[in-house]
C-alpha cells in the first residue's frame, strides 16, 4: 500500500537510479551475487516441534515446576497473616458509631478499639497493612490527578499545579500537593496494644519509615527548597488539600526526613493501587532480639476513625503479616506452579502414547500398501 502508484518501469528508462526492486538498476546488474544470503541459503538450524522433541521438554518442565510449586505453597502457608475488618458496618462492631456519623469533612476525630487475639506467634519482622476495598484508586480520573513535578519539588509546579489536578488544583491558593490522590490520603491512625494477661497493656512500637520505595523517597519525591528545614516557608503561597486537616509540612513534624512530600505514608498512598481491593503498607514492627515480634495473646487495635468508606460500600481492614523470601502470603503462585507442572507431566504422558502409536506409523508411512 505504501508503494507509490508511480512505477519506475513506465519511464522511458532515462533515469536509471530509480528505487524499487525492479528498477532499472536490476536490469543493469549482471549476474547476481552468489552469496548465501542473497540466494537464501544461509546456514540455519531447522528445528521442528514433534512429539519426540517436545516430550522430554514436557517431562523436564513438569519435574521442575512441581517441586517449585510445592516449595512456594509450603512457604506461603508458613506465612502468618491476620486480618481485621474495622469498617464498622455491623452493629456489633465497636467502630459502628464512628462509621455511621462520619463524613470526610468532620472535624472531631472518632476513636474506636477492636480487641483481637493472635493464636500463634509472629516471628521476624511483622508488616502492618491497611486494606481498602471497592476503592478505585485505579480510576483514570484519579490516577492522573497528580503533578509529579510538584511532588519532585519543582517551584513552578508548586505554585502553578498541573491542569490534571482539577478539581483539586486550587482552593483560593494553589493546593500542594494537588490532585485527587493526595486529597484522599488515608488518614486513619492505627495503633496496636498488647494486652498482658495481667490486664496491663503496652503499645507496640510501629516504625513508620522504610515503608516506601527507596527511590521514591529519595529521588522521585522531594520537598520544595531541597533540604531546607523550614518547610512551612517552602510551602508558602500554597494551601492544603481540601480534605486534609493540616498542611503537608505538618504530616510528621517530629521527623524532618519524613515530612512534607517525603512523608512515607504519603508516598505509599501516592502509588496508586492496581485493583479496587488493595492493601498498603502502614507500619513495620521490627523484630525483637529474643522474643517473637508479636507473641500469641490478646491485642487491641486502636483506631482513630477518620476515613469514610461507607458511602461507596468500601471496607477497611488492618492486616498483620510476616513475609518470606517470596514476599507475602501467596498460595496462588504455588498452586499455579503445581498445576502447570502436573499438566505438563500429563501432556508428556499423552504425547508419549501418541508418539508411540502414531510416530512409528508416520515414519514408516512411505511404503503404502
Amino acid at each position, binding site marked *: 500500500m505504501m*508503494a507509490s502508484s508511480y512505477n519506475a518501469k513506465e519511464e522511458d528508462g532515462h*533515469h536509471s537510479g530509480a528505487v524499487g526492486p525492479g528498477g532499472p538498476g536490476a*536490469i543493469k546488474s549482471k549476474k547476481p551475487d552468489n552469496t548465501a544470503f542473497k*540466494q537464501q541459503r544461509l546456514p*540455519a538450524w*531447522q528445528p521442528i516441534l514433534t512429539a519426540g522433541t517436545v516430550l522430554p521438554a514436557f517431562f523436564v518442565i513438569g519435574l521442575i515446576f512441581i517441586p517449585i510449586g510445592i516449595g512456594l505453597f509450603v512457604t506461603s502457608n508458613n506465612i502468618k497473616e491476620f486480618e481485621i475488618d474495622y469498617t464498622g458496618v455491623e452493629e456489633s462492631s465497636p467502630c459502628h458509631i464512628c462509621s455511621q456519623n462520619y463524613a470526610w469533612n468532620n472535624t472531631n476525630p472518632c476513636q474506636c478499639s477492636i480487641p483481637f487475639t493472635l493464636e500463634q506467634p509472629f516471628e521476624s519482622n511483622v*508488616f502492618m497493612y491497611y486494606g481498602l476495598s471497592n476503592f478505585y484508586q485505579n480510576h483514570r480520573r484519579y490516577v492522573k490527578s497528580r503533578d509529579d513535578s510538584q511532588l519532585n519539588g519543582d517551584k513552578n509546579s508548586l505554585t502553578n499545579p498541573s491542569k490534571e489536578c482539577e478539581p483539586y488544583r486550587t482552593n483560593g491558593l494553589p493546593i500542594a500537593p494537588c490532585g485527587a490522590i493526595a486529597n484522599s490520603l488515608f488518614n486513619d491512625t492505627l495503633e496496636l496494644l498488647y494486652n498482658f494477661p495481667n490486664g496491663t497493656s503496652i503499645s507496640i512500637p510501629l516504625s513508620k519509615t522504610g515503608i516506601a520505595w527507596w*527511590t521514591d523517597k529519595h529521588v522521585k519525591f522531594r520537598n520544595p527548597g531541597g533540604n531546607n528545614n523550614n518547610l512551612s516557608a517552602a510551602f508558602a503561597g500554597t494551601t492544603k488539600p481540601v480534605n486534609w486537616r493540616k498542611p503537608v509540612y505538618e504530616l510528621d513534624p517530629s521527623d524532618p526526613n519524613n515530612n512534607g512530600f517525603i512523608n512515607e505514608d504519603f508516598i505509599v498512598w501516592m502509588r496508586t493501587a492496581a485493583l479496587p481491593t488493595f492493601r498498603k503498607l502502614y507500619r513495620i514492627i521490627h523484630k525483637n532480639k529474643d522474643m517473637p515480634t508479636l507473641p500469641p495473646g490478646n491485642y487491641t487495635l486502636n483506631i482513630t476513625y477518620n476515613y469514610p468508606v461507607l458511602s461507596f460500600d468500601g471496607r477497611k481492614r488492618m492486616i498483620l503479616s510476616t513475609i518470606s523470601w517470596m*514476599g507475602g502470603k501467596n498460595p496462588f503462585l504455588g498452586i499455579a506452579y503445581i498445576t502447570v507442572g502436573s499438566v505438563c507431566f500429563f501432556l508428556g504422558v499423552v504425547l508419549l502414547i501418541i508418539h508411540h502409536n502414531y510416530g512409528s506409523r508416520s515414519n514408516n508411512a512411505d511404503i*503404502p500398501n
Partner: protein
Amino acid sequence: MRARMSHLIPACAGEENWVDSRTVYIGHKEPPPGAEAYIPQRFPDNRIVSSKYTFWNFIPKNLFEQFRRIANFYFLIIFLVQLIIDTPTSPITSGLPLFFVITVTAIKQGYEDWLRHKADNAINQCPVHVIQHGNVVRKQSRKLRVGDIVRVKEDESFPCDLILLSTSRDDGTCFVTTASLDGESSHKTYYAVQDTKAFNTEEAIDTIHATIECEQPQPDLYKFVGRINIYLARDEPVARPLGSENLLLRGATLKNTEYIYAVAIYTGMETKMALNYQSKSQKRSAVEKSMNSYLIVYLCILIGKALINTILKYVWQANPNRDEPWYNQRTESERQRHILIRAFTDFLAFMVLFNYIIPVSMYVTVEMQKFLGSYFITWDDDMFDEELDTGALVNTSDLNEELGQVEYVFTDKTGTLTENNMEFIECCVDGHVYVPHAICNGQVMAAAAGIDMIDSSPDAESREHEELFFRAVCLCHTVQVKEEETVDGIKRGIHQGKATSFYISSSPDEVALVEGMKRLGFTYLRLKDSHMEILNREDEIERFELLEVLNFDSVRRRMSVIVRSNTGEYYLFCKGADSAIFPRIVSGKVDQVRARVEHNAVEGLRTLCVAYKKLSHIEYEEVCHLLNSAKLALQDRDKKLSEAYDTIERDFILLGATAVEDRLQDKAADTIESLHKAGMKVWVLTGDKMETATATCYASKLFRRSTQILELTTKRTEEQSLHDVLHDLSHTVLHHHGSMIRDTFSGLSNEFQDYGLIIDGATLSAVLKPAPEGGGGASGGNYKEIFLEICRNCSAVLCCRMAPLQKAQIVKLIKASKEHPITLAVGDGANDVSMILEAHVGIGIMGKEGRQAARNSDYAIPKFKHLKKMLLVHGHYYYIRIAELVQYFFYKNVCFIFPQFLYQFFCGFSQQPLYDTAYLTLYNISFTSLPILLYSLIEQHINMDILKKDPSLYRDIAKNSLLRWPIFIYWTFLGVFDAVVFFFGAFFLFDNTTFTSNGQLMTTNTQMMFGNWTFGTLVFTVLVFTVTLKLALDTHYWTWINHFVIWGSLLFYVIFSLLWGGIIWPFLNYQRMYYVFMQMLSSGPAWLSIILLIMVSLLPDVVKKVLCRALWPTTTERIQVSAAGSTLHSPQGPYRGKRIICFCFFSQPVLLSKTEKRANRAFSPDSFSVQNREKGK
C-alpha cells in the same frame, strides 16, 4: 512563453474546428494565400513532466494522497480524536507511529520524485538542433515547439514525436531502434514522404512549405494517421498520407542514418511516450483481500468492545457514589456536559484505548516485507539467464505471495513454451518437398528421410512454379539486410555469404524463410531504390521493383507484396496462415499442399502458405487507387485499409507451403509437469493453428498419450450444433467425474481418465457470445457455464487461433468463475499483454518479440523454465511468510489489547490504560516489530530443493489455505487465551496476596506495595516475551540473523525498560514509570510468575502443533520431519529424493479426500495418475 501567449487568442477561436485533428505548419510558415486560413493552434511546449510534485506542493499534495488511503485515514482520525477529547492515552502514542509512517512514505516518494525531477531536467535541457531561417540553432529540448523543424543525427534520440521529412539517404528512409520504448531492438525502417525527401539540406528544408493535418495525440504507439499538404510553387497542394511509418517517436533512437530532418507534431506531455506513462491499474493480492476482511472483523471487534465498555460504564455508574465518590470528583465543566456527549466521548475514548488492535505498523511491515522480499527474486541465481544476461525482474512487489496461490496458468506458446528461434525445415511446392542441405546433414535428417526430395527432372511448368515460389518467399517479407558487423540488438540472422551482413526482421519466421531460401539457392540481397535484388541459382541478380507492401497483421494473418519484375509484369505475392490463404485460392494443387501442411502441423512445425496472382497494369492501377484512398483517409483508416486488403488479396494461385520449426524451450515439459503436479491447471493460449499447437502440447507434456482429447472446434461445430457438442462433452466429463469420486471413496481409483480440451477462437467466441434476447432463452447464457464446467474438469486446455483480446477474455472468464481462482498469465509478445494485464499475476518472458510483455508484466523472467522456481519456491515461501505475518500481527495485537479491555472491568470502566504510554507506543514499533519482519523475509519452512523437487507441496497452501477463517479464528482465540492468562495471572498475584518487593533493591527486606503501573509492566513483560517466543516457536529456519533479532529485541525491551524507569525524565510531566521495572525485577514472585505465565501461554499452541503433526500431518509436515531425519543421518545431503517423493505420493489421497469433504471442488486428476504409477511400481 511569449509565443504561446500570442497564440492564445486565435487558439480560442479556432479550437472548435479542431477537435479531432490538428494542423501543424511546418517551420511556422503560413500557407500561401488561397489555402485555408492560418489558424495557429496552441500546443504545450516540449517539457516532460513525469514528476508528481513541485517543491511547493509536495507537503500538502503528498499528505493528501497518503491520507486518502483508508488505513492512514483511520489512524489520522484516531489521532485527531486523541487531540480533541480527553483520552486515556496521549496523542503521542498514535501520533508518533503515524508520523513515522507518513514521514517514511513521504521521504520515499519525495526521493522518487526528486529522481524524476532530475531525469526530467536532464531531458528537458538537453540540446536539440532546430532549423531556423536556414541555420541550425541549438535549443533546449523543452523549448521545442510544434512545427519546429529538427535535425537529428545518428545515435541521437528524438526529442519529441516527429514526422520525417527527409534523410541523408537518397531514398528517404531512415533506421530507428525503439528499444527504449517497447524493447524491440531490431532496426525499423521509417520513410519520408516521397515529395519531401529531396529537401535534405538545411537550406532546402527551410524552403519547404507544407502543413500537416493529423489526429490529436493518442497513446497507441503503433497507430498514427495524418496527411501532409505540400504547397509546391503555386500549385494546388499535394496531399500525401502519413502513417506510423512516417512518425518518429520520442524516445526512439536514430541508427545507421547520418541525419534526418523532421517536423515536431506532438510535443511534451502529448508525445506518445508521455501518454503511455499512465500506470496500469493496481492489482491486489488475495492475501491483501483477506487482510482487509480481517481488518473489518477487527474493526467490528473494536467497536464492539468500545460499545460494551461504554454501556457497562453507564450501567456501573448508575450509582452516584461509584460515578463520583467523594475522593474522585469531576470538575464543574465535566459535570455540566450533557450525558449523551459524555457517553459519546467515552465511546471515542474507548476506541482510542483499544485502537492498537489495528496496528499502523502492520501496513508498514507488510509493505517492507514485500518491498525487501522481492529483492530475493531479483537476486536469485537460478533464475539468471546467461544468454540474456539478466535475471528475474520484479515490476510490482505487491503480488509476491500471489505467486504461491496460482490455480490457473495461461501460457502463450510461441516464445514462451517454445524458443521462438525459427529454423527453416522444408518447403513444399505443388506437393514436392524441398529440404535445404544444411539441415539434411543435421539432426532433422532422420525425420526427413522417406520424403521425396527435389525432383530431378521436373517438367517445365512445375519448374516455373518452383522458381516462382522461391522468388515469392524471397520477395514477400519485410526483412532488412544489415550490412555491419555489430548489431546493437539481438542478432536476427546468421551470417550471410558475405561475412558482414545479417537479416533483420521483427518476425523471426521471415528471417528463417529468407535464410532457408538462401540455402535453396535464392539469396535476397538488399532493397535498393525500391528495388529488391535477388541472387538466383545462376548467380544472376534479378531486380524487382517493390510497389506496395500490405503489412502483416494478426487479424488477416497474412501479408502481401506487389512487385514489378524486370519484364514489367506485376505480381502480387502473398504468404500467410493456411486458413487465411486457402479460402482465397482459385487454382493450384491445393490438396497436396494441404496434406503436407497438415502433416507438418502435426509434427509441430509452423507452416505458412504462399500464393500469388498476376496483375495487369490496369488491375494494378486499381489496387493503387484503392490503397491510396484508404491510406489517405483520416477517419477509420484501419477499417478502410483492411477492407481494401480484403478486396485486393483474393483469387490467388497456390504455390506451396513452408515449414519452420520452433523448438521447445529448455525444460518446458518439465516445468509444465511440475505445475501440473502442483495442482495448477495449465492452459495454452496461442494464435497458432490447432495441429501445430497440439503437437507442441504433446511435446511439452501438457497432453499425455493417455489424455483423452476433447475437441471443441469449428470442425466439430460444423457437424453438430454448438449446443449439442457442449452437452455431449460435459456429459462425458461430468459422468466420469462423478464415478471418480465414488471410486476414491471406495479406494479404487485405478480407472482414471484425464481430459484435455482443445478449443479454437471461433468456437470460443460463439460460446462466449451473450444469449440473444428472448430467442434462445437461457441456453445461450448457459454455454458459458457448461464450458466452464468442462474446463474445470480438464487437466489441460488448449486454446488455439486466439486473437490477443480473446486471450484476455479467457482469463477474465476463469477469473470470474464462481470459485474465483487465482490466475497467472505468462507470455512474451505484444499479443500477450492484454492477458498479462488481465490475469491476477502477469509474467513476462524477456523474449525475442521485444520487451513489451516484460514491461507490462508484474514479474519478468528470462525463460519459461524459471516459472517453476518462481511459483514453487518463491511463491510458496512468500505465501507462508505473509500468511504468518498477517496472522501473527493480529494475534500479537489481541494479546496486547485484550488485557486492557479486561482491565476496564476492574477500574470502573474509566479508560485507564494498563500500560505506560511508552510501552503502548513502542510495542508495535520496536519491541515486536523486527522479529516478525525478519521472519517474513527469510523463513523457510522446508528446504527449497525439496519444494522444487516435490511440486505437490504447493497444494498444501492452495486456496489461501493459511488465511482461512478457521485458522484466523484459531489465532484470534490463541491471542484471547494468552491475554486472559497474562491478565488474570497478574490479577491473582496482585489481588489475593501481598505482591511485594524488596524496596531497597535487595538490601533490606522491607516489603513495599506495587501499584497499577507495576501491574501493567508485569503484564507487558509477559506479553512481549510470550509474543516473541511464540514467533520463535514458529520459526523453522534459524539463521544467525534470527537469533540476533529475536534475542536482541527481547534484550532491547529489557534495556529500554531499565533506562525508561531509571531516570527522572525532565521533559515528561509524569514520572509514573520511575523504577517500576527495577522494583518488579527485584521481586522473586515476579520472576516466578513471568516464567509461569509465559509457559502457560505458549503451552496450548505447542500442544496443538505437536498433536496436529502427530495425528493429522500435512504433506509439508511429513516432509519436514523426514527432511530433518535425513539431515540427521546424512549431513551432506539434506534431502533423499526417493524416500520423500514416496512420502508425498502416499499422502495425496489423504489430503485430497480431506479437502474433498470440505469443499466439493473439482479433482485435479493428476494426483491420481501419479498415485497409480506409484502403485504400478
